[in-house]
């Protein structure tokens, strides 16, 4: 099994596991916590959905405490759902996912910049070596 196929079942598996763990009644508030990740899931075409994965991980980090509390409470009481849908909780979860997205995109920009600089440096060195070789081994007719 390839890495792409493995990644292809990781995200749905995590989502499915989360839903089963929180029970159907907790699914809706839980999904609302991960709305950016779900949105990304629907938009992302890349195999393995790496950005969705990042958003889910960061969303878990941002919403760990409410989710843990919801888990410990058993999730049977409507108050538990309300706690999950608390604006602060929601904001933390979404903000965390937003930070995850920013981190991924920022790192992408940084690495592209670094790779381009590296390529430019190597190209420049090659160009200057070609110029030096041309100057040394140019056709004799070009001599003064």
């Amino acid at each position, binding site marked *: 099994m390839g890495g792409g196929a493995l990644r292809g079942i990781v995200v749905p598996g995590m989502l499915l596991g989360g839903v089963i763990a929180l029970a159907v009644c907790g699914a809706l508030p839980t999904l609302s916590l991960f709305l950016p990740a779900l949105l990304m899931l629907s938009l992302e075409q890349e195999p393995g959905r790496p950005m969705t994965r990042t958003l889910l*991980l960061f969303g878990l980090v941002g919403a760990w405490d409410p989710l843990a509390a919801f888990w410990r409470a058993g999730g049977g009481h409507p108050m538990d759902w309300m706690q999950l849908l608390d604006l602060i909780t929601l904001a933390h979860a979404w903000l965390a996912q937003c930070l995850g997205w920013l981190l991924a995109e920022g790192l992408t920009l940084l690495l592209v910049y670094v790779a381009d600089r590296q*390529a430019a440096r190597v190209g420049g060195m090659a160009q200057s070596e070609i110029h030096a070789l041309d100057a040394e081994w140019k056709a004799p007719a070009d001599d003064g």
Partner: protein
Amino acid sequence: MAVPEDGWINGVYELLTGEAPPGGGGLPGFAVRDHRNGRRDLMAVQVARDAPARSLAIGALSNQTIENMILPVASGVGVAPGGREGFFVVQPAAAGRAVLDSSLPVTPWGERALLDNLLRPAAIALDRLHQAGFTHRAIRASNVFQPWEGASVVLGGAWAAPPGALQTAVFEPPYSAMCHPSGRGEGSIADDVYALGVLLIALATGEMPMAGMSAEEIIHHKLERGSIAAVIGRHRIASGIVDLARGMLAEDPDHRPLPVLLADPLAARSRRVAARPPSRAQIPIDVAGLAVWDARSLAFALQRAPEIGLRLVRGPEMDIWLRRALGDPVLASRVEEAVRDAISPQEKGEHSVGQYLLLHVIIVLDRFAPCCWRGVAFFPDGIGTLAAAADGSGDRIGLRDVIGSFLLSDAIPLWSDAGERRADSAVLRLDWRQNRMLLQTPSWAGGFARLRYALNPVQPCLSPMVGESCVVRLSDALPALERQASGREWVIDAELAGFLSARMKGRLDAEFSTLSVPENREIDPPGHRGLAQLRILARLAEAEPMRRWPVLAKTALPSVEPVTLRWHAATQRAQRRKILRNAAQEGALLLMLAALDDPASLHDDARRAQLAADRVLRLEHELSQIATQQARRRIDARRSAQEVAAACGTILLVAVVVWRAMP
């Protein structure tokens, strides 16, 4: 052997102004002082440029002593009192006067004086010379001296001109006399015996034999009547002297007594020569105004008028004369056979066929006849000195063409196989093949000039490139070129190339071949001819490596500068050009060559150029890859960034879980 600054021969012999001492033998002579010991009894005989001295004899006989013979002491280039350079042979000046001076009355010598003062001392001297492997070929009345009356004669110098070149017709056997003066060849000691016999008769009569006759008349008389009868003429001479002279003037050289036998005149006199007089025709045949009565004279007449002779040979008239008037059908048949044989090789060209036919007929008619080609007679061993005379002041025949067509034909095998030859046939053929090969070499490494100088080791170079300088040896060439080179980019012409290649004995033949063809810029590497010329000049400069040749170096510079373009590396080119220009400024030909003639460096340069080209290709490939792989780089960067972000998220999640789980 460059000319010393003081103009002395070999830096030792000073040429003095004033009256020339006797002994020059017809060539310009100068009194000489030996600066080592102040000796003043020497003279220097100036050698003509187109009639070189006898280098082999000079080399072998210098500082030898043969009593009653003037031998060479030294030879070399010097400056005559007039200021002109020349090649001189130094020899002792003759004492006394010539034995037969036309300006003074001469009393006939008595028999005893002839035997004791002339024959015996001359024969002993000739025998010594014969044992040394040489001939004299200059025994004539004006070149035999008697220091005082009653003294033994002294044979004058014979070394400053080709063998027999200065002999008058009367002192030479007819076959040698009919030859071109420069083509008489080394001959044999029998020719000296002949000349001594003529001198014997001349002194016995007190008159020059056959005086007042032209050379042609002398030869004709000798052939027709026999030498002894022609030379004695109407004079009455003692029978003992006649007996001696008859043997000495025998037509067949093998019948003449050797000098060692002449040293004992009594024994020589008792020797009888069985010579049959030539058959005489009943009526003469006219060949170009010459009334011919016998076969030998006919051969001579055919030789002196080749065009008319050829018509005669091809027509029926000669055959009829031989059969009916001369009464010799065997000879006529042999001539007819020769005509038939010679006509067959049509591929040789009509002119050569004609000459070949004529030569064949002449040697059938007279087995002693020399080679006759286009009206020029010569012995094959004299072809070198004959070549020296080509293009000279006395060459009105076009000797260059004569020798060229002669060597390219098969005349020498024909001549050497027929008749009585005085030279070894195998040696003649070998020399002929070598000479023909040289002549046929289609470049300046061969050709007529190379042949001329190869056969004449001390002939001065006749090229205008050396001006009036007397360039005889290799070491003379560069100083002469340095004096004349101003303004000339190319200082070596065909004549000088022939001289140099002959003296270098083929060591730089490739360079001379290069110089002989114009440079083809599309095929030849840059500076091809210039480098060849520089190699030759540098080879000449090796004799004096520390000496500088500024004029030659500067004039050669433009022709060799393009050689630097052979290096691919710009720094090498610039560096070598700088060295070259500095060396040219200094006049250092060897340094100039060293800067350019460096095959190891060129090889290394080519290898490095190939490596550089490969490297450029690799770099260009790398650049194109950098340009084309930008999208791939971005994908990789994005993937890496997402992996890093996921890793960060995982670490944070684990950290939060662990932190919350802690009590």
